[in-house]
């Protein structure tokens, strides 16, 4: 296999994976939006309920306004798994997970890639363990018919999200590991499919872009 096609294969895999990661992250994003709407409904229905009861107290008749979403807390709790986990591979791809890279800044290119590859290899190990035992945790919930407190939603679907999301993360880490190995072998190559270290200035720049009102007003 030529170096050209290796890099090509790597970036193709990278793009495929990124499409799935984006889809997962979109689900997470819309669950957040849904959580917002649900909260609004919850507050307004509580206000209606209060109005209705005040009216009942004052005039003695009931309009039947408002309701309390029974099990709201149960639903929200289970939905947390959607935005707590599904975006995790997307975040890794974008270099979004917190780390300290002060010490890395001074390294030579090869030392840098070796250090990155080591870190990813260890991450691969721990994520694999978490996938395996995440599945066990999920299976325990299935077998024991574990459910939530108020409305007895089954808890296994949210527990299943953990190994699913972490498996995707594992694949992302694997791609990054291969990509770093390639760079360790030939440090002068153009990096493919790996996040690069940002300087503090770049991090600041990112924050600035995020908060650039004019960018948003033009619609993206």
């Amino acid at each position, binding site marked *: 296999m030529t170096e050209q096609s290796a890099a090509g294969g790597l970036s193709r895999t990278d793009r495929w994976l990124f499409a799935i990661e984006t889809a997962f992250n979109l689900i997470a994003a819309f669950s957040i939006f849904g959580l917002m709407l649900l909260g609004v409904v919850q507050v307004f229905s509580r206000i209606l*309920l*209060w109005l209705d009861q005040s009216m009942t107290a004052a005039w003695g008749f009931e309009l039947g306004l408002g309701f*309390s979403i*029974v099990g709201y*807390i149960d639903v929200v709790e289970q939905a947390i798994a959607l935005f707590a986990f599904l975006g995790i591979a997307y975040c890794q791809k974008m270099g979004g997970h917190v780390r300290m890279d002060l010490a890395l800044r001074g390294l030579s290119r090869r030392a840098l890639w070796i250090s990155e590859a080591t870190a990813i290899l260890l991450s691969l190990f721990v994520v694999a363990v978490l996938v395996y035992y995440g599945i066990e945790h999920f299976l325990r919930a299935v077998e*024991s*018919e574990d*459910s939530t*407190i108020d409305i007895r939603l089954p808890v296994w679907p949210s527990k299943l999200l953990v190994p699913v999301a972490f498996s995707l993360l594992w694949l992302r880490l694997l791609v990054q590991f291969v990509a770093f190995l390639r760079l360790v072998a030939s440090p002068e190559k153009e990096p493919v499919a790996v996040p690069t270290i940002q300087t503090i200035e770049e991090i600041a720049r990112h924050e600035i872009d995020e908060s650039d009102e004019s960018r948003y007003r033009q619609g993206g």
Partner: protein
Amino acid sequence: GAAWSADDMVDGPAVTWNHSLWGKPRAFTMGLEHLSDELARRTGGKFEYNLNYGGLSKPKENLDGIEIGAFEAANFCNFYSPDRTPSAMIFSLPFLPIGDWEVRIKASDAYYQHPAVKKEMAGMNAMIYMAGVLPQYEFLGRGEPPRKLEDWNGKKVRAGGGVADAMSKLGATLMTVPATEVYTLLERGTVDAVSFPYSYAHAAYKVHEVADWFTGNFQPGTADCPTVFNIDAWNALPKQYQDLLMELKWEVYEKQKAAYLAADDVNIPMFQKELTEVRFTEDELAEFRKQIGMPIWQESFVDRYADRLPTQELLDFLLAEAEKARGGS
């Protein structure tokens, strides 16, 4: 106050057990504190029984921890995951005749030794050591007190488990409120009444500061948070330590009961001084038991878990044990 002789000492190898709890030391844990102290004292420090308040697991996952063997002992509450421990859900039924402390302790302890219950727990690699004997629930509320059972109609109440089933049959609106927010939501009228184990939990969340009235003898139901051991850990324990644990169990019950009663001695006079006490007549309660209680026993326990447990047999067993305890005391 008894003077212990050297005969009380139990000899054996060094063993360390971890017990996973949550929250802060309180009436509920006083018995276990006693257990930990006594085990250390009577084995000359050989059997170290550590109570961990929250460091080992989240309360809802204590059964998982027992199953995987992360710790040797733990408490779990039946309402944490109802469908996981259906046998323990019996204690959440409203108006069970187990309000008296002695009856409660004896009947629950016997109940957990029933083969069907043991089998269910063994499926999670767990065995129940002793009942948690939470006190009966009562309501504290704001606004117009519910003098008659009809007055509950339309009230917004915080309740769970069997208490919730009973209250919704009375026409109350159920609200889901985290315990930490109860104080504020009651004060602002978002909820009208809240149920908690009586009296210490009401006092712990300072509910009495914002309430106008309390029910003194409603006893709409309770819950249970038994102590469980990991079966492997139990089997690996030397015989003399097993015997010691079983011997100490009754002291633990006594200590716990004393802690609850001590809390009542402080709290109830305070409630009575500051709030209006609502008491129902025996006839009303008997009526309530028949009209509301028994149908829920059938619906929420006997029918609901019939495919997993001999539920009718278990209910009859508990009631018989309660009767026996009442006769014996």
